[in-house]
């Protein structure tokens, strides 16, 4: 295989990767070609390792990468591509067993078993039935919009440990003080100061969309969208019997269009809850990357769980150990007779820092101080 063939083959392989939702940039391709010129091309394992390293394949993308590598980097495949010229081969056929060149048994297995990762289409249909947001009336939405303004202010005033120059009070910044003193023959007329930077809140919101939450969830979801606008780092998840990451389909901008998009994309909700399983799934998949010492986790659920309570406690512990605090919003709390005795709720309670109602705008507004980082 000549250098030119190598470049072309890497380019086509990269395109196949991109079609399988593995992020590969042009500079990655350049790296890959560079890397391949430095390893023994007859050693297939070495080629696989070099490609994985140069294309920056993260653990989450590893399965897709392995499957495609199996197909693309067999000696036969490389030769066929060379002979066949520029015609791009079909993308990885997850569910379309079309015209595909020969494959090893191993790769066929990989494709059959390959889960579709966090592509929303996979789980959202299993999760939710169609439902409209229309009941969130214009007045409510307007109130939400107004609340957003307050959110921006309050959530954006938490201070980080990073120091930035300030004109007001703060600790002395020797570097800038000296710079100024030189101009005045070494007299310190005014000390420059630095103060702690103001930084955005980091929120991870897990919203229960099971049947028992039905009367409350639209309202809460509208609030969460507003929140997302104020604190852009907010991550949104929905769960009932499984967990769906909503963040990718929510964009900044007007509340109304986003709500409409969600109502079209997210069908309704009902059915049971398996809080334990969902929280455990969240902990296993996202704990490392999304939780940190400044992250506030918000769980919106009535805690009516049909799953195992032991699992709830364990997952909560795992999340709590890494997050700054856990806020649990329970719409049932608005009823003064309510006691948090539902099994799931009781199991989670020891790990909850703030337990609050979430039944109207006022209760949500009271919540704001707890959400700041």
């Amino acid at each position, binding site marked *: 295989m000549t250098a030119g063939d190598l470049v072309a083959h890497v380019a086509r392989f990269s395109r196949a990767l991109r079609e399988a939702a593995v992020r590969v940039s042009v500079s990655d391709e350049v790296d890959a070609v560079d890397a391949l010129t430095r*390893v023994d091309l007859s050693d297939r394992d070495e080629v696989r*390792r070099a490609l994985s390293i*140069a294309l*920056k394949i993260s*653990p989450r993308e590893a399965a897709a990468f392995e499957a495609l590598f199996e197909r693309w980097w067999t000696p036969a495949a490389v030769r066929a591509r060379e002979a066949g010229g520029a015609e791009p081969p079909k993308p990885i056929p997850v569910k379309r067993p079309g015209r595909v060149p020969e494959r090893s048994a191993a790769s066929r297995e990989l494709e059959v078993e390959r889960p579709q990762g966090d592509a929303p289409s996979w789980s959202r249909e299993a999760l939710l039935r169609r439902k409209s947001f229309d009941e969130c009336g214009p007045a409510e939405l307007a109130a939400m919009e107004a609340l957003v303004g307050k959110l921006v202010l309050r959530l954006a005033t938490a201070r*980080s*440990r990073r120091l930035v120059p300030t004109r007001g009070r703060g600790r002395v910044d020797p*570097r800038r003080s000296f710079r100024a003193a030189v101009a005045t023959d070494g007299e310190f007329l005014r000390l420059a100061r630095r103060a702690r930077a103001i930084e955005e809140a980091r929120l991870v919101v897990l919203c229960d969309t099971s049947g028992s939450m039905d009367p409350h969830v639209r309202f809460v979801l509208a609030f969460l969208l507003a929140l997302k606008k104020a604190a852009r780092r907010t991550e949104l998840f929905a769960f009932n019997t499984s967990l769906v990451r909503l963040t990718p389909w929510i964009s900044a901008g007007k509340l109304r269009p986003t709500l409409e998009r969600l109502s079209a994309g997210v069908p309704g909700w009902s059915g049971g809850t398996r809080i334990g399983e969902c929280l455990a799934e969240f902990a296993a998949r996202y704990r490392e990357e999304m939780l940190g010492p400044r992250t506030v986790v918000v769980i919106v659920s009535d805690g009516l769980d049909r799953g195992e309570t032991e699992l709830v406690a364990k997952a909560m512990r795992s999340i709590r*150990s890494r997050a700054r605090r856990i806020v649990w919003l329970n719409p049932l709390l608005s009823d003064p007779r309510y006691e948090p005795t539902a099994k799931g709720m009781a199991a989670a309670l020891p790990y909850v820092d703030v337990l609050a109602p979430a039944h109207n705008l006022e209760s949500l507004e009271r919540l704001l101080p707890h959400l700041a980082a």
Partner: protein
Amino acid sequence: MQDAMERFGYVAEPEIATAVFLAKEMGKPLLIEGDAGVGKTEVAKVLARILDTELIRLQCYEGLDVQTALYEWDYPKQMLRVRMGEDEGRSADEIESVIYSRDYLLERPILRAITRSEPPVLLVDEVDRADDGFEAFLLEVLSDFQVTIPELGTVRADRPPFVVLTSNRTREIGDALRRRCLYLYIEHPSLEKEIRIIRARVPGASDRLAAEIGRFVQALRARQLLKTPGVSETIDWAQALVRLHREHLDAETVERTLGCILKDRHDMTDLGGETLAAMVGEAAAMG
């Protein structure tokens, strides 16, 4: 490369050896991710020993700013100089040119890595802990290995350092920085590799002890723990057991020394006496 790394006591999988080799050959930074204690930092240390060069380490933390990473002026010394200059009746310009010279500059890790004539290994440890602003700065430094000090001018590396970045994935590293690097994800080692690591790093451990430790730790990792023990914990534990003159594992010793590998109270209470005894039994039986 694999052999070279093993010579210095690092049992490297082909993935790790290939990544280090490519990073060295292509002159690109290497970003290493993986759970705590899988030997990410160790890669940089071994690389420095293989290349027989200096290891410069920059430990990242929340609030780390450019000054701490790059350079700082020696203020007390500058202050003295300014006062002396005044007494000697020198002009402000004269004083300025003196106190903002190399003699008054304190090099911090990144500047030090750039100004060395022999390219060192620059280890940027736990880059996920620094904030986004610092990441952007790092990206700039890693792309052209030059730094501008307003008072002195631009400092450029004659030969760029070998850069190793590590991340525990407490947050996602920005895409731009990730794309600038080669990427390696280190998993927890296999049983066979873990035993070899114990043998390499704790020569005092008998074959039997090493194998039992390996099996026990592997069994631990298979459980749902809050803090999964890494290889560094395994090594600590093996060293502790060797100090205690143990030739094999028994339930009592394991219980007493469990603090070497489990660093969370809940994990420890989860593994009650019986579970523990059973695991020790299994680890010993397979030998």
